């Protein structure tokens, strides 16, 4: 099933939720965390970042919070309860998929024993 199919978050939105699961962050911090979490495979720019943030905000999965200090004009975002539940649901699906992949020897050490 496609990552953007109904019931599944698009890749960028999923990565942003994952980045916000630890703590609230502003835009650039989200980008950095996404890049770190994906080991450099997902690199966001402001266009894709804020497009996804807008959608997540409208869906009630994240929300804007006040800046840490009055001087800081950056907007911070945090994951909502609904967002955490959604992320958890996706993670459970992935966990089940990974288990299945291991069972079928697509993933894990078994792949080496099968092909070497």
């Amino acid at each position, binding site marked *: 099933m496609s990552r953007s199919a109904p019931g599944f978050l698009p890749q960028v939105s999923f990565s942003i939720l994952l980045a916000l699961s630890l703590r609230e962050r*502003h*835009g*650039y911090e989200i*980008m*950095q965390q996404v890049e770190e979490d994906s080991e450099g495979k997902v*690199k966001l*720019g*402001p*266009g*894709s*970042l*804020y*497009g996804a*943030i*807008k959608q997540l905000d409208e869906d009630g999965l994240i929300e804007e919070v006040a800046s840490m200090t009055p001087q800081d*004009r*950056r*907007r911070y975002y945090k994951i909502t309860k609904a967002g955490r539940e959604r992320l958890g649901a996706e993670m459970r699906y992935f966990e089940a998929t990974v288990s299945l992949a291991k069972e079928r020897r697509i993933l894990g050490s078994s792949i080496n024993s099968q092909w070497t």
Partner: protein
Amino acid sequence: MDIEKLSRRFPVYSRVLRLYPVPYRERYTEQMLQTTADMLDGVPDNLRLRLWVHIVLELPGSIVHQRLIYATQALMHETPTYVRRNTMVSALLMVPFCAIAVINDMTGHSLYQTWFWSYSVLLTWILLLPALSLIISGTTFISWLYGRKKQGSSLLRSIKDIRHNWAMLALSFLGFVILGLVFFHDSVRCVAGDPVREVDNSHQTIRCIEDGSVTTLGL
């Protein structure tokens, strides 16, 4: 850093961001500028050009995406019910032509050599349905203009209100293009490789369809 300072730092970029729809712009422009500033401040000088390329390359897709969302929301929530309904019907009437045109293109067939070859069916999908679609979208657009005029909006202003009339205009335009293609474009005449080779105008094209000579083509 406030938005004026950020706009002064990135004058061209901040102008490009004005292409986003107004609500998006009001909410996210400052944040996008701030994030861009943070990104550029966070990399060495020699990587800034590469970063700019990355930022600029993803902008067109993002702007078009937000514009589409904005326009769709306007169509679904800010236009009268008859406009939505007629637009939907008009769009559905275009589907056979567009679908068969795509299939023809993929299979290397011309318009009049389609695999979907039957005189009555051909007449329906290349002429009747697009013409009906054009009539519906065109009359809906005129009715909508009239309704707006009654509400005090000038004609020019209503025509320029692309956000609300884009679907009607796009469907009318598509209808004109299809009918123009069918009637006037030399490359789609019905006689490519057919006995009636000299057809080069609309009357002859219609005659070609009427006498059914094209149905013998390649079959």
